[in-house]
């Protein structure tokens, strides 16, 4: 067991070990009961029959689903690149010395941080065409996602830039760099390195947002699942498989974020650990800020 965890409770003695065993057995029984009930529900409605799952072992179905996953990744990549760039500009705008620029960027972030992405999707679907802005299907999904994710990215960038030691900026100015140069050569490289885990976490959120393609009828994973389900009438099987694909992709990305976080922790403490006061021992292991 992780040593940190023993702060909340003692090394279990005989009685505590007995209670842990009882709780384990009860918990296992509850889980098994839940699984048994689920299997019963599947079986009693004939959804467990082999021929209702067999299609998901065939290549055409998987090729269809992998094509859909590719469309999801494509939309996510386009959204990530565009909203990342826009977010960085907004963050710089919010931190700029010009008041109108600060105000504009601030207003953008405040507005689009609190307006649901679905409302923006509805606007691109039903409002913009009326004014002659009829995007292709792909951009009908990507544009609203870029608009709303840019606000999220702006907040991440701003937090990262502000969290950097003021001394870095002051030192840059002291050696005669201009403000733009300080930002580009000194502040941003350091801030971006530290932000990588948060940016990767935001990627997970963004990839999940592409499921709004369901509303746009852009053939990403969820909408393709819907099409497949209405074609094969294998509703629960299809959506479970689709959920599983999302889970595998996103869990890998989340894992990457955690690995980067751990590596960053090592990078930023290296060579400075002597000057640093010892960090407080966390009560639970492996927690990530979110």
């Amino acid at each position, binding site marked *: 067991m992780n040593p940190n965890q023993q702060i909340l*409770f003692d090394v*279990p003695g005989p009685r505590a070990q007995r209670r842990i065993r009882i709780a384990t057995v009860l918990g296992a029984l509850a889980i098994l009961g839940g699984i048994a009930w689920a299997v019963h529900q599947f079986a009693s409605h004939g959804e467990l029959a082999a021929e209702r799952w067999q299609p998901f072992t065939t290549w055409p179905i998987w090729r269809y689903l992998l094509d859909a996953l590719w469309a999801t990744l494509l939309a996510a990549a386009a959204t990530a690149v565009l909203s990342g760039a826009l977010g960085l500009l907004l963050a710089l705008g919010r931190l700029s010395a010009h008041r109108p620029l600060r105000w504009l960027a601030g207003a953008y972030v405040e507005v689009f941080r609190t307006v*649901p992405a679905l409302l923006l999707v509805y606007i691109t679907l039903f409002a913009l065409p009326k004014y002659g802005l009829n995007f292709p299907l792909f951009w009908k999904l990507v544009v609203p996602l870029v608009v709303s994710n840019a606000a999220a990215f702006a907040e991440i960038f701003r937090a990262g830039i502000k969290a950097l030691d003021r001394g870095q900026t002051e030192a840059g100015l002291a050696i005669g760099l201009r403000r733009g140069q300080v930002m580009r050569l000194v502040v941003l490289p350091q801030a971006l390195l530290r932000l990588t885990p948060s940016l990767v976490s935001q990627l997970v959120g963004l990839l999940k947002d592409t499921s709004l393609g369901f509303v746009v009828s852009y053939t990403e994973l969820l909408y393709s699942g819907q099409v497949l389900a209405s074609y094969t009438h294998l*509703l629960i099987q299809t959506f479970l498989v689709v959920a599983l694909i999302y889970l595998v992709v996103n869990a890998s990305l989340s894992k990457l974020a955690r690995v980067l976080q751990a590596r960053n922790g090592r990078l930023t403490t290296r060579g400075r650990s002597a000057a640093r006061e010892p960090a407080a021992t966390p009560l639970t292991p492996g927690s990530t800020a979110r």
Partner: protein
Amino acid sequence: MDALTGHLGEFGHGLVTTVHMTVVTTIGALLLGVIVATLRICPVPLLRGVGTVYVEVLQNLPLLALLVLFVFALPTIGITFPLFTSAAIVISAYEGAYLAEAIRAGINTVGVGQAEAARAIGLTFSQSLRYVILPQGLRAVIQPMGTICIALLMNTSLAAAVGVVELTQAANNVNLVEAQPIAVFTGAGLAYMLLALLISRITGALERRFAIVR
């Protein structure tokens, strides 16, 4: 403007549904969040595993995929709830995972000495959690929990995609009748912004009232 004033009833109904959904799911998500955060730090390894799996699964699935699965697919194996209830259950479960992580982060901010002191005076795990750790841990993360509540408010709009007529869907319906997209969608956007502002005001007030200055 006529498009807004002429359909105040529909807008009002959508707004009430959104607020109702937000309040119900916030309560559900808070309860789930505390339970899952507790599971993740409890002495029983199996239950810790359950908590971890819960958070990993719910945080890595799109909410819309969960809603579609729950609303359209579960009835085929005989599990059916009213539409509003289904949406509320799914959104609570989803946001519960995020609140659990926030609460766990809060528990991490509680000084080690507090936990050691609680054990030293003989409190059991659940007692020290209830009387010492959670009251301090929860107070430390009021602000992050408020941020999650605003995300929850925005996510209630996804219920529209499975057929709940809340604010977003009401706006869309009114627009289909009136064809006045600018007025209608700006109105809905403003309503969301006001609700978000209200939530951040409430969390601000709670923070001033309860947060411990260290």
